[in-house]
């Protein structure tokens, strides 16, 4: 028996050792990807938090969309050169770019566009609104809608729901409910190789119809840890970081250090604000004087300076005023006025009767809990700052951090007092004033956010008819109403931070935080 056993063991040991050697030598055999680029090859190496195929930013290099969107939210031409909308907003006629080819050589014409649109509609939320799709000629796509759907062009500008894919990109080929298996698009870069969680290699699409990129090759390298990203950037293993993220991956506190190390850092605002959302169904926050008071109690200027070295701008409106339908005309902006805050709270009946430093009303102290979804950037630091600011006016805030899925579950059930999150931005309707969004009472994620019948009526009116000048007026009304009601505490503008080495030039911020404009970038 023992002899037999020894035989077993030897076999197992030998097997293990040889497996190890094989795996190690297999590793050696692969070409070293740190090897310098072939002479003269213009290579850009991106350090990214996510895997290439899991990030919209990566997909957007390969796939384009029918329309794009500018910084403010105006639709701009992309694969559709122009479009006409019927008066009732139910018929869209897209005039397609001519001379566009997919990466595999397939011509992008009306029939390919029809396939792509139907594939998109099959999984996009607007799919149920779509009626007929026609191709009157080779360069025209005509869409008939059953009902008017206001955010169509914004939805089509989203790389997440609406990439224009090639009929050969799906399995089974040409099926409108096929699964996307091949990354074949019309974009400025072609995907060459992809290794899960590791890297993707893309080369320039030399037949690109638009602005041809200056770099010849892009390598997307997945580096999940932000500190490891910074080391990789400093060590020259990647050329740029942060550009591949829509949520800033570079901690704001690291920015001064990066600049000192000779790294260039650009911060771009996309009008996405970090906000503290009130649960307006809770008794404490059912009073707009209380909500406004808390809004006035926070010194945002000091907050961004002390926590983030002044990198992001403080926010005094619910969303960025410069969006097309943003709160540009509101009279009531928030500021810092602790005296007024105290006065408002007193008016609402909150007084410190027992002298413990905490306000109370009907024998109950003003105490509540801020719910923080784990991973919400900067939320911990911000929460502690807000906590100390509120304490000064006699309000006690406790902090509760939950794993993000669990936290959002509570939000969906309205089981929180206050919730920290980041507001809607393009290509969705900014600020949460769309139908079914945060401030509409049919919102499923936000049943306990501020809702009112009049607000619902205005929201439905704004997005229920295609007259855009009328819409702007109604949106102004909506914003005026919301700012007076103070449904949330906007804190600061979450800027996207991009850092790159001095061999990179020509960086230009993309119109939305989900895109990268790599066309203008040059690498020495």
């Amino acid at each position, binding site marked *: 028996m023992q002899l037999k056993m020894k035989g077993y063991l030897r076999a197992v040991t030998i097997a*293990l050792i040889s497996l190890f050697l094989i795996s190690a030598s297999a*590793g050696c055999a692969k070409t070293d990807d*740190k090897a310098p680029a072939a002479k003269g090859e213009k290579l850009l190496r991106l350090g990214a938090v996510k895997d290439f195929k899991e990030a919209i930013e990566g997909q957007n290099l390969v796939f384009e969309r029918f329309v794009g969107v500018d910084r403010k939210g105006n639709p701009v031409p992309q694969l559709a050169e122009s479009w006409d909308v019927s008066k009732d907003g139910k018929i869209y006629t897209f005039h397609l770019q001519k001379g566009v080819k997919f990466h595999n050589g397939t011509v992008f014409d009306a029939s390919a566009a029809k396939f792509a649109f139907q594939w998109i509609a099959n999984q996009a939320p607007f799919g149920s609104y779509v009626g007929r799709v026609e191709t009157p000629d080779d360069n025209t796509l005509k869409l008939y809608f059953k009902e008017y759907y206001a955010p169509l062009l914004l939805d089509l500008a989203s790389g997440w*729901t609406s990439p224009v894919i090639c009929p050969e990109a799906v399995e089974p080929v040409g099926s409108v409910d096929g*699964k996307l298996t091949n990354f074949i698009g019309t974009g400025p870069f072609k995907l060459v190789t992809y*290794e899960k969680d590791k890297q993707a290699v893309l080369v320039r699409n030399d037949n690109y119809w638009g602005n041809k990129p200056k770099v010849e090759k892009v390598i997307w390298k997945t580096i999940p840890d932000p500190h490891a990203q910074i080391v990789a950037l400093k*060590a020259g293993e990647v050329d740029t970081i942060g550009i591949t993220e829509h*949520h800033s991956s570079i901690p704001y506190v690291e920015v001064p250090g990066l600049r000192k190390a000779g790294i260039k850092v650009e911060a771009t605002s996309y009008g996405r604000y970090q906000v503290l959302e009130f649960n307006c169904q809770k008794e404490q926050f059912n009073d707009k004087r209380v909500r406004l008071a808390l809004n006035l109690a926070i010194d945002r200027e000091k907050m961004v300076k002390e926590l983030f070295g002044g990198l992001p701008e403080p926010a005094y409106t619910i969303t960025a005023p410069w969006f097309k339908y943003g709160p540009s005309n509101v009279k009531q902006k928030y500021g810092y006025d602790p005296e007024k805050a105290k006065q408002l709270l007193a008016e609402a009946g909150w007084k410190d009767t027992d002298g413990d430093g905490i306000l109370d009303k009907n024998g109950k102290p003003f105490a509540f809990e801020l719910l923080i979804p784990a991973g919400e950037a900067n939320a911990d630091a911000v929460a502690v700052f807000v906590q100390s600011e509120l304490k000064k006016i006699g309000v006690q805030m406790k902090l509760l951090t939950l794993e993000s899925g669990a936290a959002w*579950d509570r939000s969906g059930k309205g089981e929180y007092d206050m919730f920290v999150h980041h507001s809607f931005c393009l290509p969705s309707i900014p600020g949460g004033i769309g139908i*079914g969004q945060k401030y509409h009472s049919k919102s499923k994620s936000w049943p306990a956010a501020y809702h009112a019948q009049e607000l619902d009526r205005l929201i439905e009116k704004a997005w229920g008819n295609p007259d855009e000048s009328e819409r702007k007026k109604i949106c102004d009304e909506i914003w005026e109403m919301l700012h007076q009601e103070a449904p949330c505490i906007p804190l600061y503008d979450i800027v996207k931070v991009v850092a790159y080495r001095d061999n990179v030039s020509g960086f230009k911020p993309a119109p939305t935080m989900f895109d990268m404009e790599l066309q203008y970038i040059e690498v020495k």
Partner: protein
Amino acid sequence: MRRLLIQRLVSAVFVMLIASFLSFSLLFSAPGNPAETILRQQSGLDPAYDEIELFMKRHDLSRPFLVQCLQWLYLLTHGKLGVSLRTGEPVLEEFTARFGATFQLAVAVMALSVIIGLPIGVFAATKPNSLIDHIIRVVSLAGISIPEFWLGLMLMLCFSLVLGWLPCFGHGTVRHLVLPVVTLAVGITASLIRFVRTSILEVLNLDYIKTAKAKGLREVVIVWKHALKNALIPVVTILGTQLGHLLAGAVIVETVFSWPGVGKFFVDSIYARDYPVIQGFVLIIAATYVLVNLLVDILYVYLDPRVRYEGRS
């Protein structure tokens, strides 16, 4: 021996099924909806209600708990583990695409730890309470206590940034292997040293060692041949569980060094409530645990001839 194998394999099937059933039911009852979580992660925006409904419908997520379990079992009997909700790829492919990297890391870490830890542990045991023994004990205590993420970042700063000798992330060459292996091996080696030391010290007090000494055997032979073999049984057990852990993925080191292994993907899937991935991965990881333990049991027989599995039953 054959009996042992059959017993183990049968119990392995149950262990695997129960483990994945438990993990599924725990996650199913935990707050958080896969559709909402995944859509929010991917698009970076609050998903619309229609989007969530559509996603749930497409992935059969609105069915009752037991139906989903049975569905999964049905797939399993056809040799399938389902499709990841997050990536849309088959779960088995997601596993095999990453297991190579995890296996490489695990084997290298175990090899390095044993090569370094075993001799040092034995050496410390032969000189109990000497200065060198104290130094080894303090150093190994420090090694156990250092958190991996900190050590990893420090090594990275030192060897990648300041010295520029090694790449700070990635996978593929032996140079990429060095930092993650060292980071993981420090803790394992340190605990191995302490374990070997105590284990040998215990054995050295036994009668048969005295006999060996009385026979006039050289100390080297006594310690390395007679004592070590006996002392190894608990050590092997510990190494087995550690190897099992490593094969399930070293999440922190994988994250810090961008190592494309199973651990980080698995944890991300838990955050995303990606049920099929969690069930499938737990099933496979449970299987590797059973396998490693079986190997350990087989090693016992070799180390200690008194262990006879036939005799026991």
